[in-house]
């Protein structure tokens, strides 16, 4: 049996009378690239906040990295990495200061941080940027650094919320190569995107609509099931069902 890193059963989140997440049920397996897709307002951000321990579900069972999101959301935060579309790096700190800061936040000791920082800087080919302020770095490099920092403390799972929004085609592809490499090293990648070609790069994809999960499978299987030739058509079919009746 596959090793589950995220286990969600009948998860509901209400804001007043509005049901943002309507009985979500899904599992995410270790080392998988899990694509979380949906239209704006479908409830993706609400679900991610719960999975990251930032918000509590109204009801249901949510286990992330072996930890219950109901009882100990604080514990979850230590076991995950997170990167949002607008990066979380400090513009007025240098590359090495940002790495040190985030390592510290995640409870790493200086003895752990510095050797790993050297490795990372070499791997990224960032020697000449070590003491550069984030503010002065090209966007593509910031993006790579933000991702590297999100996995620096060796989390079991990393959440990437629209990580490639507004990035140029080359950097976008290089970014996905980092995602592949990370997944190969056993870190689970949970990613949202509005680029439908990127949906193809995921091992499995969910498509949310109006608070529910409408589809969940490999991209190939989903295209077969819905009888479409690409992910864009699939997305259209699921998020705008009224257009297909005509």
């Amino acid at each position, binding site marked *: 049996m596959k090793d589950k890193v995220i286990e969600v059963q009948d998860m509901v989140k209400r804001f007043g009378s509005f049901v943002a997440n309507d009985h979500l049920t899904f599992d995410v397996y270790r080392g998988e690239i899990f694509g979380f897709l949906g239209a704006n307002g479908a409830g993706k951000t609400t679900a991610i906040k719960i999975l990251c321990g930032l918000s509590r579900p109204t009801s249901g069972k949510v286990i992330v990295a072996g930890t219950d999101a109901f009882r100990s959301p604080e514990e979850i935060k230590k076991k995950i990495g997170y990167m949002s579309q607008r990066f979380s790096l400090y513009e007025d700190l240098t590359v090495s200061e940002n790495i040190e800061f985030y390592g510290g936040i995640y409870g790493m000791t200086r003895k752990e941080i510095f050797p790993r920082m050297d490795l990372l800087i070499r791997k990224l080919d960032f020697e000449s940027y070590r003491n550069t302020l984030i503010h002065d770095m090209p966007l593509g490099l910031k993006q790579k650094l933000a991702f590297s920092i999100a996995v620096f403390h060796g989390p079991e799972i990393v959440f990437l919320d629209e990580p490639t929004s507004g*990035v*140029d085609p*080359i950097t976008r592809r290089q970014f996905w190569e980092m995602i592949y490499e990370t997944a190969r090293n056993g870190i689970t990648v949970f990613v949202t995107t509005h680029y439908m070609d990127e949906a193809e790069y995921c091992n499995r994809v969910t498509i949310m609509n109006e608070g529910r999960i409408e589809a969940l499978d490999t991209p190939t299987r989903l295209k077969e099931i819905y009888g479409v030739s690409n992910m864009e058509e699939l*997305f259209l079919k699921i998020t705008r069902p009224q257009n297909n009746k005509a």
Partner: protein
Amino acid sequence: MNTAVEASHITHRFGSTVALDDISFKIGEHELFGFIGPDGSGKTTLFRIITTLLVPDKGSMTVMGRDTIKEFRSLRSEIGYMPGRFSLYQDLTVEENLNFYATIFGTTIKENYHLIEAIYSQIEPFRKRRAGALSGGMKQKLALSCALIHKPSLLVLDEPSTGVDAVSRAEFWEMLYKLRDEGITIVVSTPYMDEAMRCDRIALIRNGKTLGIDTPDNVRKKFTQKLFAVSSPDIYSLLLALRSMPAVNSAFTFGENIHVTIAPGKTIDEVERSLAEKGFTDAKINGIIPGVEDTFLELTQK
């Protein structure tokens, strides 16, 4: 065709950073013109110059034949601008925002309602909601309504579709076509290469320079090499294998395929043989027609 926007040798610096480097172009009236390029390529700086909000270090810009520096006051009522960052009043309601913009331009919602009806009707049920509490898609629709309410001749949209889902983006473009057909010139920027095909003409922009201005179809034809799509279930292993082959010039992922060009003097047959040797017996190879994104990748590799 009359010229709506004309840039002549525009250069602009921020400290030591050259944001725009000697850019010239002409945009015709009633054209839907796209600037296609990544963050940091200079699109926003250019748009701020077009909309009279920024004075360039060098060069000149005219809109509807009028100079953007000397005649900025009269031009501002001709231009509708939707900045990349949501810039409406978060603590005013949907309706109050629209009313505010109509009033400062000396018009009323009623007078130009026909222009915004298709867009605004979708958010009208929420007209009493504060703008700050709207979803991303609704904010976008409100911002467009506010940019249009004074019936501008030129509409400038800075990345209106970034962060918007694929289906809403397609609907947004349908709205832009309607506005163009009403006679409004539209200048739009986007990091999405598939949206380039939707424009009448495009300029690829990178590092403050244009890499070519033409119809999307002609930009596509600038691709100089033969292009192949290669696919196999394990796309990452396939990518690494292709990259390691001397016969492969470039290999980029495109959804379920990898787009491959061949090194000088080599053939696709050699790639096919190497793939078989490496155990990719199920790999499929097809010759394909390049898209705008392929051209952009090729141009930026040079």
